[in-house]
C-alpha cells in the first residue's frame, strides 16, 4: 500500500445474485487527491461507492480507509466522510437551514456552520424557504452543503453537478478544489468528461465491474491522443497521415513541399471517443 494512500480497494468483488457488479477492483486513492470515477451505466461505480459508504458489504476483497476496514470499523469511519448521493434526500418540509442545522447537530458542529456552508453554496438567500420549493439545482447544492458541513477528510460525490447551471457547477468545482487544498480526498462519479479533465487529479474508468483505465487526465490524453493529421489536397481529396509511421511522415512532408496541401489539421484528444473506446462502447 503506498504510504499516502487514503483509500485502498483490494480485489473488491460485489455480487448481486450471480451478477458481478464489481469484479476484482484494485484501486488506491491518495490522500488529498480528487479522483474521478467514470464508466457507463451499470459499470459498477455506484456499487463501489455504496461499499465505500458502508451500505453494501463486499462479496470478496476489502476496502480500507485510512488503514481501517470499512466493514469492521464503519462506526469510526463514517464521521470522517461526507456523501452526496445522486438522488437528493432532504426533509422536504424543513427549510434549507433547518435541514443543515439538524445534520449539524448530529455531527456536533456549531449552529453557525450551517450559515457558512449555505453561503459557500450560494443558498444563503433561500436558506429559510422550505426545501419543497427548491429547484433541482438548489437541492443538489444543498446536498453538497450537507456533505461538507463537518469538514470531512473524505468526500464521495455521485454526479455532483448534474442539473446544475454553468455558474453553479463552477461554484461546486471551486468548493471541491478548496477542500482538496485543505487536504481532503475526493472521489466523484460523473458523466461529464470536461469536468473530469478540468478538476480531477486522476481518473479511473470502469466497465463491466472492472477498471479499464487509470491515470491522470493529462496522461490519458497523451496515451490516447491520435497522432494523425487530416489534410485536404488541392484536388479536393481528404487524406489522413499517421505521424507514427515513417511513410506517413514522408508522404505529408512531400505533399507540403509540393504546395498541394490546401488545409492541414492535427487531431485533438477526444475524451468522449477515448472513453467509448476504453469501455468498449465505441461504434466501429
Amino acid at each position, binding site marked *: 500500500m503506498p504510504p499516502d494512500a487514503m483509500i485502498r480497494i483490494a480485489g473488491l468483488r460485489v455480487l448481486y445474485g450471480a451478477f458481478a457488479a464489481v469484479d476484482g477492483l484494485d484501486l488506491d486513492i491518495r490522500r488529498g487527491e480528487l479522483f474521478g470515477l467514470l464508466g457507463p451505466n451499470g459499470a459498477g461505480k455506484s456499487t463501489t461507492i455504496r461499499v465505500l*459508504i*458502508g*451500505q453494501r458489504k463486499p462479496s470478496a476483497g476489502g476496502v480500507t480507509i485510512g488503514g481501517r476496514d470499512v466493514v469492521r470499523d464503519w*462506526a469510526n469511519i*463514517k*464521521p470522517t*466522510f461526507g*456523501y452526496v*448521493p445522486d*438522488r*437528493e*434526500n*432532504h*426533509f*422536504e*418540509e*424543513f427549510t434549507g437551514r*433547518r435541514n443543515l442545522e*439538524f*445534520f449539524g*447537530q*448530529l*455531527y*456536533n458542529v456549531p449552529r453557525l456552520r450551517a450559515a457558512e456552508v449555505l453561503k459557500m453554496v450560494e443558498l444563503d438567500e433561500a436558506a429559510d424557504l422550505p426545501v419543497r420549493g427548491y429547484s433541482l439545482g438548489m437541492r443538489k447544492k444543498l446536498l453538497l452543503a*450537507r456533505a461538507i458541513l463537518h469538514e470531512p477528510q473524505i468526500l464521495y460525490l455521485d454526479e455532483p453537478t448534474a442539473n446544475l447551471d454553468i455558474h453553479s457547477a463552477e461554484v461546486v468545482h471551486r468548493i471541491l478544489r478548496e477542500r482538496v487544498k485543505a487536504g481532503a480526498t475526493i472521489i466523484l462519479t460523473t458523466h461529464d468528461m470536461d469536468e473530469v479533465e478540468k478538476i480531477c487529479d486522476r481518473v479511473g474508468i470502469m466497465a463491466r465491474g472492472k477498471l479499464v483505465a487509470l491515470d491522470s487526465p493529462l496522461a490519458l490524453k497523451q496515451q490516447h491522443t491520435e497522432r494523425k493529421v487530416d489534410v485536404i489536397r488541392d484536388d479536393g481529396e481528404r487524406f489522413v497521415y499517421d505521424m507514427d509511421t515513417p511513410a506517413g511522415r514522408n508522404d505529408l512532408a512531400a505533399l507540403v513541399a509540393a504546395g498541394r496541401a490546401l488545409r492541414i489539421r492535427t487531431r485533438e484528444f477526444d475524451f468522449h471517443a477515448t472513453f467509448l473506446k476504453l469501455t468498449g462502447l465505441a461504434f466501429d
Partner: protein
Amino acid sequence: MRWYILKALLTKEFSRHIANRGGIALAFLLLAMAVLLSVFTPGETTAAGTSMVGGVHHCFIEFDRPTPLVRHLQANVPPELKAQVRFRELRKPDDVDGVIAAETGTGSIQIRHVNEPGKRPAVQVSVWHPDSEPGALAPYEQWVWKESRRAFAIEAAKKMTDAKMPDTPAFDAENNWLVLESHKRFQEQVEAGRKADVGAPLVPDLTIDRRGLGGKVLDFRAAIATGMVVFALYFACVYLLPTLNCEERERGVLLAQALTPASPTELLAAKFVFYPVFGIGLAATLAAVYKPDVLSSLFFWLALFAVGGGFLGIGMTIAAWAKTQRAAFFGGMCYLLSVSMLLLICSLNGIPFLSYLAVEFHGPRILHAALSGTVQTAHWRHLAAALGLAVAWLFAAGWVFRRRGWQ
C-alpha cells in the same frame, strides 16, 4: 448513547409533526371530542344521556290529554330514566292502529283516556316497542305500571276520604310487586273458597329473590373514551411510526442519517421513545379530560404501557417490513382489518382462545375498566396477557429489524 444525538433526533421528529399539521389536527380533534364528552354530562351519572335502557335510548310517553295520571307520571320519573323519558302530546289521539315509524333505538308508551257514555271510564295503554324486541321497554313499563297504580290510589283516596283503601303494594326496587300482588290476590281468592275442613292454606306464600351476577352494564361514555384512548395509541404507534419512517427510508433521508455519527441504536431509540411517548401522552390527556382521577390509577398506567407497548411492537414490525410509505400505510390498515375480522368472527361464533392472541382483545377491556372504575380480578389477567403480547410483539419487531434493518 449520546444525548446530543438523541436530542437532535427527537427534536427532528417533533419538528416534522409540527410541519405536517395533519397529525396535530387529528390530535386536537380527539382532545376536542374528549372535552365535549366531559362537558356535556347530563346529570351526575356517567351513563346518562348516552346509555341504553333495555336497548332503547329514548322512550316517549305520549298522551291524549294532561290528566292527573299523566301529571303524576311526569312528576315521578325515576332518576335512572330521566335522560331517556320524554313526554309529548299525541297529535292524533284516536289513531290507535296507524303505522308509527320510530327512530331506531326508541319506543313509546301511549296513554289514551276513553270516556264513552254508558261505559266505565278506561285508560288505554299502547306499548310500541322496537320490532322483534317485545321486552325492550320493560324498565319503562314497570315504572309506568307502578306509578299508575300509585296515581289511581291517590285519586281514589281523594274522592273517598272516609273509606278504607286497599293496602299499598310493597313497591320494591326490583319491581317484583306486580307478581307478588297478583299472587296475593290469587291466594285471597283461593282462601275465600277454601272449606273449613281443609286445614292448611292451599296456595303457599311466594318470595322472589333477584340478584346480579356481578357483571356491569356497559358504560357507553367510558366506552367512547376508551375508543379514543386506544385510537390515540394506534394512531401514534401503528400509523404514524411506520408511515413516517418508511417515508424517510423511501426518500433516502434515513440513509443520510445513518451515514452521520448517529448509530443505528440511537436512531432506533429516538423512534422507540418518541412515538410511544407521543401516543401515551395523547392517550393519557384524553383520559384525563374525560376523568382526571384516572391519572392516579396504577392500573390505568399499566394498561396504557401494555397497549402502547403492543402497538409499538406492531408498528415497528410493519416499519421494518414495509419498504415504502404506501406499503406501511396499507400494512397498518390490513393489520387493523384482519384483527377486527378475527375478533368479530371469534365473538360471533364463540371460538375460544384465538382472540386472546390479539392486543386489541385485551386492550379495550383493561382501559375501559380503568376509565369506568370497574377493575376486577379478570382485568388483571387481561392486563398480564396484554403485557405478554406487548413483549412478544416487541421481540417480533426486533427479529424483523435484525433481518431487514432500516435499509
